[in-house]
């Protein structure tokens, strides 16, 4: 295997399956830009030759109403004409309540298909049921976020082909550019009409937005909508446009609605998490970010949610309103919207029922999609409009590089989500993390896996103080003036090591099991097989 070295010193493969890979060259270097634009002009010249330009392959519809409704799963699979090695895609709006991924894969396995590549926008604990299909050879590759047991299986070398991890924006770009070619997109929809128009706003499995499925609906060779909420044409609100949909299948249930919206928006009781959240809110105010009309993104994790609550308290006291928050929407954000502290919510996905309901009823709660929110080849996306993004990490290092994928023991346990997209777009990127978990230090000399370069990371907030990237003297100065507890990372690392001890390094084999792709399609790092 030939190798390249990225601009941050990571050694990554030069080629996989005969396809040349470009090493990461900087967050905004975009070394593939020239190639992409020439591909585009080529595509215009020879559209039919480009497999991703699916629209050109569809025959002009004949006169009258197309019949898209299929009679059952077998009817659907007969029409999809999937073969061994096909790439199938799914969205993750149904979260841990999803029934469709396992339903599709087990039915395709029963039909004798093997070597499938699955390209979900994310996987959840419920998808551990994929493991037997991975071990039996039905699934050969995962291109998408891997969570928990699936990621661990990948780390242990159990997935035969090389997997690819992309951010939400990076995945959208790969689909748009024809780099991730999807043979069939299975779009679970809480509400759909027989023509294929679909949304997630109503129906018994309502989940809020359905935007993650949008790029797949536009670019997959075949698109199937699976619904448990069939309504007459035209359904109201077309998150997914029927013009992009080939088939519609009605089923009893697409998911377990109790787990679709987990509803765990209770404020954390962990004193350490509360302390970090409080310091984060103090920093945002002290740094001058919290001013009239500002915007922010904070996830639904314990620290992020608490930071949002504390930030809102400061906004109330100071009489400041935010123009919008980007989510991952939660009840916390919905309450702020209704209180008038937020002008609007731009929402890629609802984390709880309150958010899903708000998205359905409140025009200020705007449904987004990965291209609009995070698209690397957009003319600017929602992330670019953010003044501050509050993100998490499994590790950070002395150069402010961030790992969100693996733990210090080398196990791949998390996807990237929107992390790198938000970090690259926002005016200020804050990473919140405890300085150690159990006895595992979070601040390392070098991150185990490099997901996000320190170039786009400005601030790291821990319970033992705030570290600010030396590239941001403006933030350092304002924080000093406000008397915030600043620390430098080498000192923090030493202090934490005195408490935890120094962990042993995990042992890896040479073989990469997953690529970590930067938003522009370059390879920023690899996850290697663990030597157990």
């Amino acid at each position: 295997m030939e190798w390249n070295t990225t601009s941050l010193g990571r050694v990554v493969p030069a080629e996989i399956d005969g396809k040349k890979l470009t090493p990461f060259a900087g967050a905004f270097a975009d070394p593939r830009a020239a190639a992409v634009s020439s591909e585009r002009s080529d595509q215009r010249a020879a559209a039919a030759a480009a497999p991703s330009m699916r629209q050109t392959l569809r025959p002009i519809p004949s006169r009258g109403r197309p019949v898209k409704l299929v009679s059952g799963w077998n009817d659907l699979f007969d029409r999809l004409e999937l073969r061994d090695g096909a790439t199938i895609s799914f969205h993750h709006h149904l979260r841990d309540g999803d029934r469709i991924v396992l339903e599709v894969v087990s039915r395709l396995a029963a039909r004798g298909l093997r070597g499938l590549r699955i390209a979900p926008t994310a996987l959840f604990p419920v998808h551990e049921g994929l493991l037997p299909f991975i071990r039996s050879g039905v699934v050969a590759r995962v291109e998408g976020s891997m969570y928990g047991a699936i990621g661990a299986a990948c780390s242990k070398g159990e997935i035969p082909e090389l997997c690819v991890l992309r951010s939400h924006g990076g995945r959208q770009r790969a689909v748009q550019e024809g780099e991730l070619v999807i043979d069939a997109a299975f779009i679970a929809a809480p509400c759909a009409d027989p023509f294929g128009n679909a949304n997630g706003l109503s129906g018994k499995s309502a989940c809020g937005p359905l935007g993650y499925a949008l790029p797949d609906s536009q670019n997959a060779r075949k698109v199937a909508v699976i619904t448990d909420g069939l309504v007459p044409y035209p359904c109201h609100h077309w998150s997914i446009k029927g013009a992009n949909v080939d088939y519609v299948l009605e089923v009893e249930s697409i998911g377990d609605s109790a787990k679709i919206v987990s509803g765990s928006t209770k404020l954390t009781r962990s004193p350490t998490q509360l302390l970090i959240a409080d310091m984060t809110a103090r920093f945002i105010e002290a740094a001058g970010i919290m001013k009239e009309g500002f915007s922010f993104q904070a996830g639904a994790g314990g620290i992020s949610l608490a930071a949002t609550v504390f930030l809102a308290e400061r906004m109330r006291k100071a009489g400041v309103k935010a123009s919008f928050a980007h989510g991952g929407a939660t009840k916390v954000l919905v309450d702020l919207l209704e209180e008038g502290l937020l002008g609007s919510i731009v929402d890629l996905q609802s984390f709880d029922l309150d958010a899903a309901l708000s998205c359905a009823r409140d025009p200020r709660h705007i449904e987004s999609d990965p291209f609009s929110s995070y698209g690397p080849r957009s003319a600017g996306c929602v992330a670019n409009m953010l003044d501050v993004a509050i993100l998490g990490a499994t590790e950070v290092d002395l150069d402010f590089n961030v790992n969100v994928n693996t733990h210090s023991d080398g196990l791949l346990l998390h996807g990237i989500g929107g992390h790198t997209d938000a970090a690259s777009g926002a005016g200020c990127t804050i990473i919140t993390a405890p300085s150690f978990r159990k006895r595992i230090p979070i601040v390392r000399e070098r991150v185990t896996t490099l997901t996000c370069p320190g170039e786009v990371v400005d601030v790291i907030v821990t319970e033992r103080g705030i570290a600010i990237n030396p590239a941001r003297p403006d933030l350092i100065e304002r924080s000093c003036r406000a008397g915030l507890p600043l620390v430098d990372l080498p000192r923090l690392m030493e202090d934490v090591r005195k408490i935890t001890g120094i962990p042993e390094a995990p042992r890896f084999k040479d073989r990469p099991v997953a690529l970590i792709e930067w938003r522009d399609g370059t390879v920023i790092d690899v996850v290697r097989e663990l030597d157990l």
Partner: protein
Amino acid sequence: MSKDLFRAGSRAKSDCSVTYERNGAPLTATVSSSVGSLFGKAIAAAALRVAAEFGVMTGSFTIDDDGALDGTVAARAEASLRLAGFSRIPEAVPAQAPLADAPAAARPANARAASPRGRPRRARLYLPGDQPHLAVNAGLFGADCLVFDLEDAVVAERKFETRILVRRVLEENLMLGNCEIAVRVNPLSGPWGKDDLAEIVKARPHAIVLPKCESAADVENADREISILEEAAGVPAGSIYLMPLIETAAGALNAKEIAKASPRNVALLFGREDFSRDIGAVPVAALPGAESLLARQMIVLAARAARIDPLDSTYADVGDEEGLKASCEEARALGFAGKGVLHPAQIPIVMEAFRPTEEEVMRAEKIVAAFDAAAAEGRGAISVDGAMVDAPVAKKARGILRDYRGAL
């Protein structure tokens, strides 16, 4: 459990269980841990170091771990060996030179800074002694005082291993910040109190909280006991403070004598739950604190007369911020100098409630300025706005400025 198996600790978050098996084979340590690939060797080494301190060469440790720090592993290993009847070999005991007399450079890096008698004790955070994960960050939340609890928070079966754990946490002293460190031992009249003191005095906490104090004799006994232990451990005589805790009718009636019973006393504490039970009161929401009003006023008077801090009980409903705020305001109005807290989230509310008023801060500024000016001219006592100001008054004013000038 077989007579040759001795177990301490449990596999809880940031804790571990250590089982020592007595047998004739050369000593081994087997580790199963959620952080095993990163710290497996360190965990085994921590247990084996303790075995060396105890001169134990045979047998086997089985350690079931979920991210315990080395100090916790060592505490659990020590407890298992002591249950098996081993004791520490004397030369392994740390040097006995009185620390306070040693030059700063010669002190171990983890030596605790002294805690001034007159320091503020607004918020004191109670930490169940047997939950090591709570201790790790306890110093970060801004409490004036941390109280490691060996008494009510610890069940009888865990008293033995918990006092060892707390001793080790205090000895390591890695993360306790600038807090005053106190340990609530069990009552000395009961089965555990004396063993608690024997274990804990060695680790030199700033203070011992003495529960269920009912008479001056209770305090005098503790004072005597601590003096003997201080001498044996090479701790400077009289350096460990006492905080008698009054939580019975008899204790309240004897508050005056209790407050004056020992020069070690720095604070007089009130314990509301036990007090209510003791007097047979059934508290009602409409009259919050009514059952203990007289007792608390007696404690304030006794403590203030003895020039020590009267400190109010905890507020049990951790989620009720408004209730806590009201309770703090009431305590302050009665003359208390601080309150106990059960969760770090309560600390900012208590600190806010016990902060001086703007007028007090301005007056402190005036006092310090006048006192410094007078001192420069060689005068000691002066008067500010008609009130006499001497060194102790000036010192208190400086304390107020140190803590609050920046915040206004």
